[in-house]
């Protein structure tokens, strides 16, 4: 560090940082105090560290270039693309139905909601309508997916915080029960490939509803146990409260969606706003956070699971026999009329949208996935700057990303 800088009592980080900061509201909320030394060399310098792509807490192959002052984060740049396979290009070269299995691989924890979002966009493009039983099956499977996702997220987050093993194993034990349901319904535990345009691939197997009811009935007991572990744990509270605060206005402006947005106190749930499918039939509440910190993001997920269970209870009770496919939906030679459509759903991680342009051919002219995981990372730097490296891991964990969807 130069002598001129050493003379100042405090200087802004932008003078000392390695990367040049873009203009806008990204000023860190603390100032670096230069350390004085006899020679004026080495001490007070910033260190650039690459966290990832093989770091276990990045949940995949994701890199964060972090500039550190001691243990404090001064600057953070996410680096993407390690898992990029150009899903959109592949989908533009195959038929509409042909990219349905590919959507499973986007967010591989929630393949059924991915299927639904894509089916919804194509249904809007082609003017199809899923029959009532199919809509019920979609709601049931989507809410089960939400349970799996949120349970695993809390497990992973506790693991990242150092609660090695136990919470994650508890979460995975519950996840297995739901995955067994998916397996008996779709034939696959994770890559379900179950929804079709204007309905679902196959009907529920006999006895499935009873099994699902049993899983849903037993879930609150697990949640009680899990929440006791969460809300009464001193270490967890110390590690999450006041860490990574996301203000309400920034959350809206940065297009943050899903539980992360609601943790910042914005009442926006696409299940309520768009009421796609049959979500207008189920009364459920939207939990909102007050602080927008990591603790809120954690608790919001726990509360959302309770609401999902409410929806599940009603849907499992009200589902009636009937057809599961729109008879207008063609399997072979499916060519929607020229035009475009944007369909979106409330996936467990946020707004998952598909934008399709048809030119009348058998494959989409333009196929675009709006990935919630990628866009929720926009404010990662804003949340992390000023905190220590160990908090970066926790903050990233609370964003809830899956790299299959971030890189596509």
């Amino acid at each position: 560090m130069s002598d001129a800088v050493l003379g100042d009592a405090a200087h802004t980080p932008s003078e000392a940082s390695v990367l040049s900061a873009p203009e806008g509201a990204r000023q860190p909320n603390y100032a670096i105090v230069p350390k004085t030394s006899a020679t004026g060399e080495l001490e007070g310098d910033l260190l650039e560290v690459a966290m990832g792509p093989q770091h276990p807490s990045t949940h995949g192959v994701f890199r964060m270039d972090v500039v550190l002052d001691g243990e404090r984060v001064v600057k953070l740049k996410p680096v993407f693309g390690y898992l990029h396979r150009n899903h959109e290009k592949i989908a533009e070269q195959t038929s509409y139905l042909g990219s349905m299995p590919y959507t499973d691989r986007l967010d591989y924890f929630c393949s059924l909601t991915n299927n639904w979002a894509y089916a919804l966009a194509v249904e809007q493009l082609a003017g199809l309508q899923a029959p009532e039983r199919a809509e019920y099956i979609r709601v049931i499977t989507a809410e089960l997916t939400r349970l799996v996702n949120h349970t695993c997220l809390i497990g992973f987050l506790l693991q990242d915080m150092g609660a090695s093993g136990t919470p994650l194993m508890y979460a995975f034990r519950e996840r297995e029960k739901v995955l067994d349901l998916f397996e008996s319904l779709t034939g696959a535990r994770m890559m379900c490939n179950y929804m079709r345009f204007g309905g679902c691939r196959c009907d529920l197997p006999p006895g499935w509803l009873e099994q699902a009811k049993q899983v849903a009935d037993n879930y609150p007991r697990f949640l009680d146990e899990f929440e006791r572990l969460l809300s009464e744990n001193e270490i967890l509270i110390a590690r999450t409260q006041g860490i990574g605060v996301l203000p309400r206005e920034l959350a809206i402006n940065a297009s943050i969606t899903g539980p992360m947005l609601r943790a910042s106190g914005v009442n926006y749930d696409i299940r309520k706003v768009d009421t796609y499918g049959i979500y207008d039939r189920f009364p459920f509440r939207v939990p909102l956070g007050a602080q927008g910190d990591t603790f809120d993001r954690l608790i919001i997920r726990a509360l959302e699971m309770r609401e999902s269970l409410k929806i599940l209870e009603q849907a499992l009770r009200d589902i009636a026999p009937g057809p599961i496919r729109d008879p207008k939906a063609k399997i072979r030679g499916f060519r929607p009329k020229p035009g475009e459509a944007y369909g979106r759903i409330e996936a467990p991680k946020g707004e998952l949208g598909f934008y399709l342009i048809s030119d009348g051919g058998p494959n989409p002219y333009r196929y675009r996935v709006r990935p919630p995981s990628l866009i929720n990372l926009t404010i990662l730097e804003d949340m992390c700057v000023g905190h220590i490296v160990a908090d970066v891991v926790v903050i990233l964990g609370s964003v809830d990303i899956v790299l299959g969807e971030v890189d596509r």
Partner: protein
Amino acid sequence: MILLDGVKSRIEAAIPGARLEIIRNDSPSAQRSLQVDNEHAVAVAQFLRDAPDFRLDYCSNVTGVDWLDAEISEKVKIKKVADGVEKEIEEVKKTRRLGHLEAVYHLYSMELKHGPVIIRLGTENRADKNHLPSLTPVWRGAEFQEREIYDLYGIVFDGHPDLRRLLMWDGFQDYPMRKDYLEPDDYEYEPTAHDRVLEKTKRHHQPEAKP
């Protein structure tokens, strides 16, 4: 529900000189969109975000589209008088569409809970005039998505705070999502290229095939 004709007339009243055009959509989704000229794009975006009756504070989806040079034939019904009888005759009208790149923004309102309002910006051509104004200063949520469009389509967003490639690596040359993108030769699985693969290899080695 928010009607695009109302949006258009409000923008025209608020921002004089803005050239807007409603793009129709014949598919059952009927999501029409608004073509905005590049000079007034930022002003229009700011107006849509801040006007109290729109408050489109949430830019959900930003994406690029590549349109190649094409001839579009459209069936138009024209009334003609033939032999003293008025007849309706279908004629095929042909228009030439110049190749260009497009950025599409899907806007919603989190405050008023309506949307989508879809706005489109278009470049002049696909080669050198590929600049568009960035809307990231208006909606921060467009930051990574515009970077992705720059990466995969090659649209340069003027005014973007941090325009770098997002998914491909820095030294990468071409734009993979363009319709005329040629995949690199990597035919390890086919040591003696023939038929289609040979055709493609030849095409790839012609220097004029790629701009």
